[in-house]
């Protein structure tokens, strides 16, 4: 944590250099969300509840000066949950200075980076720790301290990352749902590296597009963002040191998108390969009414098997996305995930729309109908839930 503060101090110095010489552009925005999660069954474990009300806020501030050559941005996030003390959390999502010098771009601070193309799982995406308590689909990320250099030229985009500090994972707390029988304290898991959280992690990525093809090739060395289990009986999660090579590919041919992403993870517990591959086809402007119907299908494979804290090992993901393209940006996404080895099935539906210009409403349902005792999902078999959220934007 101390290093984060040193970083912030460094940033403030950088921020003030050259500032004020030209006109600066400030931008502020904020979101406040009120959420209710209703679990359909009583919890399997002591202390759990069926109804959770929470409130979240996310203010963002950015400033650009010298005609956008220099900028500073910060995004903060906080949630207060009625019962789950782990879900009541605060995070710096972004806090970085950036300089742009022709095709060169350098950023110092906490950033969020996204890599990948598939919808069902985000396998190559490794830079940031996942904010597990925040989102079921793993799309919420915690800010990662880094120095990030990026070069964009005719040969594509080359990214270099240096990450001096690691953010541990947070699982739901004692009174929270969607948890294991024993509450996991991600902050207490041991590290393989003697430097622990301060292991200097590095990553590189090259990406480019050639006609219909978009390709990304990445390498990461450092603390694994996801803990791994050495011995399934002892259930002793640890953050191993990993070398990970990732490839993401998309072919955009007409209304069809073909997607693949895969990793090879080299570590001291079990080397493994993981991938997701599939397609997304869109029937656009159906009947001339502006309705888009997207059909998604993906296959998921994860070679860790039971050593992973997750549930997608040999699964088929199917989904349908409805985009109404109306004044309210109404959208619905319905998904079904079927395990190919076990009878496990997950169904989910998400819907959202805008109202009164500055509000949005979201509905989410996640249903775990069947699960095998061999699977991680078995721990949360009674945790099917509905989520309602209303957000106000400023």
């Amino acid at each position, binding site marked *: 944590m101390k290093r984060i503060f040193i970083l912030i101090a460094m940033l403030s110095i950088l921020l003030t250099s050259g500032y004020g010489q030209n006109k600066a552009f400030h931008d502020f925005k904020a979101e406040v969300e009120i959420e209710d999660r209703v679990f359909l069954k009583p919890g399997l474990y002591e202390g759990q509840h069926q109804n959770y009300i929470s409130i979240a806020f996310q203010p963002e501030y950015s400033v650009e000066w010298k005609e956008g050559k220099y*900028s500073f941005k910060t995004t903060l996030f906080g949630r207060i949950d009625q019962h789950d003390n782990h879900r009541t959390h605060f995070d710096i999502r972004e806090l970085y200075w950036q300089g742009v010098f022709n*095709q060169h771009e350098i950023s110092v601070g906490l950033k969020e980076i996204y890599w990948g193309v598939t919808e069902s799982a985000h396998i190559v995406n490794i830079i940031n720790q996942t904010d597990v308590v925040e989102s079921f689909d793993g799309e919420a990320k915690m800010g990662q301290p880094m120095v990030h250099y990026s070069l964009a030229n005719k040969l594509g985009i080359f990214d270099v990352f240096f990450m001096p500090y690691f953010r541990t994972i947070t699982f739901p707390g004692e009174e929270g749902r969607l948890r294991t029988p024993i509450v996991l304290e991600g902050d207490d898991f041991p590290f393989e590296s003697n430097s622990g959280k301060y292991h200097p992690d590095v990553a590189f990525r090259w990406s480019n597009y050639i006609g219909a093809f978009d390709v990304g090739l990445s390498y990461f060395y450092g603390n694994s963002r996801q803990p791994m289990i050495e011995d399934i009986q002892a259930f002793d999660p640890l953050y191993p040191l990993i070398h990970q090579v990732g490839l993401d590919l998309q072919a955009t041919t007409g*209304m069809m998108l073909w997607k693949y992403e895969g990793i090879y993870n080299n570590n001291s517990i079990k080397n493994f390969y993981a991938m997701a591959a599939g397609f997304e086809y869109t029937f656009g402007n159906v009947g*001339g009414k502006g309705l888009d119907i997207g059909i998604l299908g993906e296959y998921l494979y994860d070679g860790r098997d039971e050593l992973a804290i997750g549930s997608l090992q040999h699964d088929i993901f199917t989904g349908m996305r409805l985009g109404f*393209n109306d004044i309210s940006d109404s959208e619905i996404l319905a998904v079904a995930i079927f395990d190919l080895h076990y009878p496990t099935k997950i169904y989910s539906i998400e819907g959202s729309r805008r109202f009164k210009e500055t509000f949005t409403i979201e509905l989410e349902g996640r249903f775990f109908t069947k699960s095998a005792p061999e699977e991680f999902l078995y721990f949360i078999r009674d945790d099917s839930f509905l989520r309602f959220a209303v957000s106000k934007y400023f």
Partner: protein
Amino acid sequence: MKNLLIIVLLTIGVLSNVKSFAQDNGQKGLEIAELADKADQGFESSEVSLKMILTNKQGQESIRLLENNTLEFLEDGDKSLIVFNSPLDVKGTSTLTFTHKEGSDDQWLYLPAVKRVKRISSDNKSGPFMGSEFAYEDLSSQEVEKYTYKYIKDEVKDGETLQIVERYPVDEKSGYTRQVVWFNKSKAYRIEKIDFYDRKDALLKTLTYENYELYLDKHWRADEMIMTNHQTGKMTRLVFEDYAFKTGLTDQDFSQNSLVRAGR
């Protein structure tokens, strides 16, 4: 037999006349489109703020704010970067489009909530843009090669010569069978009005260009574009503010890194 021969010869004669008449009008239509394209060449790059005002049948309004940067290419289509500033829940969402004279355009979408750059299909062009009466294809770079043409007639209005040309989208994924375009010959072939006919060849929409201004003594830009949907009664007004040309934008301002930065 002799009569039949005459009839055949006459028929061939008439047909070839019709054919050459059609060819002439096709050629003339294309020439007008090329003149219009040429008249606007050389702006190099442009930056503009847009306000999109959506009005439903009951007269209720909804507003979207956008910024659009364009880099001109003569040998291929233009590059364009659009940033959405409102509605607030999608603020920062941006698109990067590389238009091509032939084939599908390349398009990427940046989603600021998850920091994700996503290559998207540009073939879904007939759908509404942000719930408005403008389709994606109405707003993309209008390259000459994207249509075939037929000259219809000249019209004189307020002492200016308007040349009416029908154009037919080459791409079968277009939502239109044809568009009727009013080019103003007296004002560097700027477009005054377009009628859009849907796939059933029924009049769907009319776009009118209002309050034209001349920039750099060469480039006519309308301050306002009004799209009226005749079938739904809905309307969208596009108001352009603070047009700037030759702003020094280069290829580097249209990279995926630029797309991410624009969405900040």
